[in-house]
């Protein structure tokens, strides 16, 4: 069941992205057309105010609406997949890279949908959905078999909370990243068809405001777990350190937003850097080993 839901979720996420892409492309097209026929009704969606979200009429609008509906569907399928998985394996679905990747994608989808509902900016989906889709596609490339937990992971409560909290942080950082990318690709003053830069700046900030406390909690819970399982609350394990780097970058971002000369693109670049650090933290254990490596543990 988990498998079927996963595949359905994967397809739905892909389809949602396709809808957004079509919607966005038609907005751009309408804009270009409107340059040539400024008085014509063809200006339609483009003249609605520019943003994809506001393109509520015409074909591009309906594609965007379908996109959102299908994205909700994708989130539903992935949720179902995670629930079935939890029932099947008997612990939070966060114990190996497959489970964690699906959960990551879930976090991105849910956080995107939350911000989409709140700010009505579907353009975010153009960046956030590929992140979710990439995670799901990545999940298809790694073995999905559920192995019994190695002793260090046999802590159901902390495994579930520590990783669930991390998923929320990662999801919000993906949204912040999406908004930062849309911010950075625009010239000063904004570009039609994309959300206003100030709005994107606000969305990024709001996303980090949720994500930062969750990342802080992830690290603290990680330290609590490490103190129980590894005999030390902090041991400069590469994944630990990478999460610290991520935390510091988002901490820097929160300060940068109020420092002259760092506002706007400066802090947007920090968000891109922060997302890079997030991915590095996430994938890190694949190439730097350490205590977080989930395979080939020879001691614990």
């Amino acid at each position, binding site marked *: 069941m988990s498998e079927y839901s996963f595949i359905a979720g994967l397809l739905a996420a892909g389809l949602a992205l396709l809808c957004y892409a079509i919607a966005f492309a038609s907005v751009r097209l309408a804009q270009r057309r409107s340059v040539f026929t400024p008085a014509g009704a063809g200006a339609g969606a483009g003249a609605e105010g520019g943003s994809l979200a506001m393109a509520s009429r015409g074909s591009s609008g309906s594609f965007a609406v379908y996109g959102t509906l299908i994205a909700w569907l994708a989130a539903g399928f992935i949720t179902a997949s995670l629930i079935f998985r939890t029932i099947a394996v008997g612990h939070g679905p966060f114990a190996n890279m497959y489970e964690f990747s699906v959960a990551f994608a879930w976090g991105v989808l849910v956080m995107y949908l939350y911000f989409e509902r709140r700010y009505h900016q579907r353009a975010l989906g153009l960046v956030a959905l590929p992140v979710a889709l990439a995670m799901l596609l990545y999940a298809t490339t790694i073995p999905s078999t559920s192995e019994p937990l190695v002793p260090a992971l046999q802590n159901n409560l902390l495994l579930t909370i520590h990783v669930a909290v991390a998923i929320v942080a990662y999801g919000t950082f993906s949204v912040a990243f999406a908004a930062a990318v849309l911010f950075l690709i625009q010239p000063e003053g904004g570009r039609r068809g994309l959300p206003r830069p100030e709005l994107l700046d606000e969305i990024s900030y709001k996303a980090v405001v949720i994500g930062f406390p969750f990342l802080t909690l992830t690290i603290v819970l990680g330290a609590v777990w490490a103190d129980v399982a590894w005999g030390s609350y902090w041991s400069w394990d590469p994944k630990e350190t990478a999460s610290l780097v991520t935390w510091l970058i988002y901490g820097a971002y929160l300060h940068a937003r*109020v420092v002259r000369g760092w506002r706007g693109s400066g802090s947007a670049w920090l968000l891109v850097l922060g997302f890079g650090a997030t991915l590095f933290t996430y994938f890190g254990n694949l190439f730097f080993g350490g205590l977080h490596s989930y395979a080939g543990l020879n001691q614990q």
Partner: protein
Amino acid sequence: MSQIAPTLTSEPVDDLEGGLAISPAFLLERVWHFFISMRTGLVLILVLAALSLVGTMLVQASPGLKSDPQAYAAWVESVRPKYGGWTGVFNSLGFFSIFDSIWFKGTVTLLITSVVACSINRAPLLWKQATHPRLSMADTFFEHAPLHATLSGPSDADAALAEVDGAFRSHGFRTVVEQEGDDIHLYADRFRWAPFGTVIAHLSLVLVLVGVILGTALGFRNTDFAAPIGAKVDVGNGTGLTLQATSFTDSYSTDNGAPSDYASDLVLYKDGQQVAAQTIRVNQPLRYGDVSFYQSFFGPAAVMQVKDASGKVLFDEGVPLLWGSNDGKERVGQFTLPDQGLTIFVVEPQSGEVSPTIKAGQAQVEVYKSGSETATDIKILDQGKAATVGGLSVTFARERQFTGLIVARDPGVPFVWGGALALVLGVCLVFFFSNRRAWARIRRGDDGTTSVRIGAVIRHDVAFETDFRQFIDGLKLALDGRSAS
């Protein structure tokens, strides 16, 4: 950020004299302004992030390694193939033990100084804002505030006030009203204590650092504490504790052979009295007072029996074979006979490996005078048969397991948890409860209406703008309703 204001003793005649007249107070003030600058903090955070990144990208030498120059040099050589010509550069920059380096510690020190300075700088201001806020604002404020609106109200100023006051209260604001002549001033705020979250979050980092320093200075951490099953092993480090592991079991999954459980039965003694007994697992350490015992590793031990010429038993315990030989074919353990001044090494073939000299089921025993580099006697023993080695009767009795523990005492831990808790609470307080402040002024106009001016500042709280507009729209409706009635 406030401007740096030089405090000169007298008006400088020219630039040169001005430069010379730098007083200690001026210098202090400059240093102070350096540390309370948000920009300083930002740069320090980014430097710390960059240094930490180095720590994840480059292999780090294990913490104890630096104290043994020879072992450290050998370790550096072992990573040379990986980093080539950069090895020397990285090493001299301290990049192989970055978290112990002057760069890292220096940056942390500067950052914590900045954190403390900023908190000292901000706290009184926040306190004043929360307890004695400015109640009235001038016209210029209502004209230039980032969020502002002018509404017209009913002729009855008190009725207008009631509407404004009620509107703020229904949005969760606290209000303070002040009468000044014909003007009514209203100050409204929400979550006025939330800004202290930043102070709490920042100072929590100091608490964590205090915990780390305390732990390093007063604690100990033995990561290779090996307890052969049955043997009583002193914990040392001034704890007065003795540990006996009565059993060790390692279980493996039947599906894929991956480890599924490690468990040791431990009994803890203090001054000969049993004080604790527990089965420990990887996620279930034994805690006694502030000393903790964690399941960490395990391995084989050789039970050795040593008697002197008179037949008196000098040693009868398991010797953990903790180390591997350089070629990886043998494993080595060691024990001492302090009264005899002897150190005895036990060497066995590694399981699955063929040693050139020692057969399976045999152990090689090497006797050294403590401190000497050359063995006084070396013999290969068959299991169960006594032999004379260095004048002593030595028996390799049997194989046993040992359980490997981490034993640690860290008096800094409560500070670290206190800091962590404060950090999470502080961060949540700031971000989930945004402090909002607004001012209103109600003034009777000549035309029989009252003018209601409202202004608010935005501090890192962009959603306020939307809420403010909605608030004004709602209030406008209410005031219009009053005027009409």
